[in-house]
């Protein structure tokens, strides 16, 4: 593959990623696109993305192949080897020649990965300031370091992934907060409106209407605010 083709592939990938981030997006699809871009535009055989769960354990969320071999290798990488190292240190960890590597504690990782025919591993952390969300892991069939160009591209892709994940998380958190608050806070207005509807319909005072509303909710074993909402929307008549 010529470098020109790779560059245009990268260019296309960044353009697509930027479009995706601007619109609504599915974060898993975004990460899948990222690992596939790594595979096609960087000189690596396979790529996988590990994300930390709330217990700070790394989980595989996207990979270029569903083959058991790759999946197993990446899952193991979550426990020992350069990926977990990179996650803890927040730094890029490069192992250009696995066969020559002698790091203690990585023995099982080296054996499994070598069995799959990989000879080099590069891990880039997904990091924003002090927070490390996970790692982008690249597996090569050849030995040797990534070119400077590919290293920069890998970091840029990892940054895009970081932004995409954080943005989606904050969006989801805000939305959840918004929904929970809205439910809690809207109920006051809706209950008052429902009291008005019942007060007029039954020719009683608003206080008596509140009792009617409350009794109905109790009998139906439903939340007061839900019953009030149905009355106001004319879904039930009390």
């Amino acid at each position, binding site marked *: 593959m010529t470098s020109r083709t790779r560059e245009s592939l990268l260019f296309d990938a960044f353009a697509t990623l930027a479009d995706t981030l601007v619109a609504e997006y599915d974060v898993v699809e975004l990460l899948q696109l990222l690992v596939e871009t790594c595979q096609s535009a960087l000189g690596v055989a396979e790529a996988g993305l590990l994300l930390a769960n709330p217990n700070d354990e790394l989980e595989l969320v996207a990979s270029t192949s569903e083959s058991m071999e790759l999946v197993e290798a990446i899952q193991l990488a979550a426990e020992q080897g350069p990926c977990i190292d990179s996650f803890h240190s927040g730094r890029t960890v490069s192992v250009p020649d696995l066969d020559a590597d002698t790091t203690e504690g990585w023995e099982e990782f080296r054996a499994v990965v070598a069995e799959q025919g990989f000879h080099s591993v590069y891990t880039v952390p997904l990091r924003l300031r002090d927070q490390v969300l996970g790692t982008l892991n690249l597996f090569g069939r050849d030995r040797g370091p990534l070119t400077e160009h590919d290293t920069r591209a890998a970091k840029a892709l990892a940054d895009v992934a970081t932004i995409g994940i954080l943005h989606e998380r904050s969006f989801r958190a805000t939305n959840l*907060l918004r929904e929970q608050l809205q439910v*809690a*806070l809207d*109920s006051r207005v809706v209950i*008052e409106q429902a009291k008005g*509807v019942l*007060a*007029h319909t039954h020719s009683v005072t608003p206080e008596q209407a509140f009792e009617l509303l409350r009794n109905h909710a109790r009998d139906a074993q439903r939340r*007061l*605010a839900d019953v009030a909402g149905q009355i106001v929307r004319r879904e039930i008549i009390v």
Partner: protein
Amino acid sequence: MTPDFSDVFERLRSFSGPDADLTDQILRIVPATGASVATMGFLAAETVAASDPRAARLDEAQFDLGEGPCWDAVATRAPVLQPDLQGEGAVRWPALVQSLQGEGIEGVYAFPMAVGSLIMGAIDLYRTGPRPLGKDEVSRASAVAEVLSSYVLRRALARSGGEEPIPDESPFSRRMVHQATGYVMAQLGVSAAEAELLIRGRAFGSGRSMREIATEIIQGRHRFEVKGNMIEDGQ
């Protein structure tokens, strides 16, 4: 610089009530004639505290009419400064300025209160004298709005249970308006939004507040009826 600025600021940061003390604290560090604090935007529009009847009237008129500096501050998420209410202000908010005739308000200033991306309300300040608020005073009021936003949210959440009536009813409560909205819905078979609009229109048309109209509706002194395809006032 007012000597007790940081003192008041800290007090507001950990403010826990009563609501009526809010505006005294604000006016200690921002030299306006009067101040009010209102929930808006994400929360139902309602005055939390007002330093004097004129401040309360300024809030209520804005809620009833749906226009004014606090609505603009909430919509733009930025302070709205209008030192010349009768001049430029009258072009921007004609109905509001008309309904505030004779109140003697020269300048109005509104500061949005937000928690994250959610707007919780606004602080309104007004002045009767011609001197506008200075730059420092504006940034102080903005800072106050920022610290009070979380108090306003906590307060709304504490009142949101819904299972029991609220024990300490605020004098500025708009629950009468919400109840009256329900009456009108039942009288005419219209939606909540339409019913509220009818009450708003009736208030505007008669130069009274929505709360006054609401009280009459609840007491049965004012009712809406459909005659042919017209909505009329019944007795």
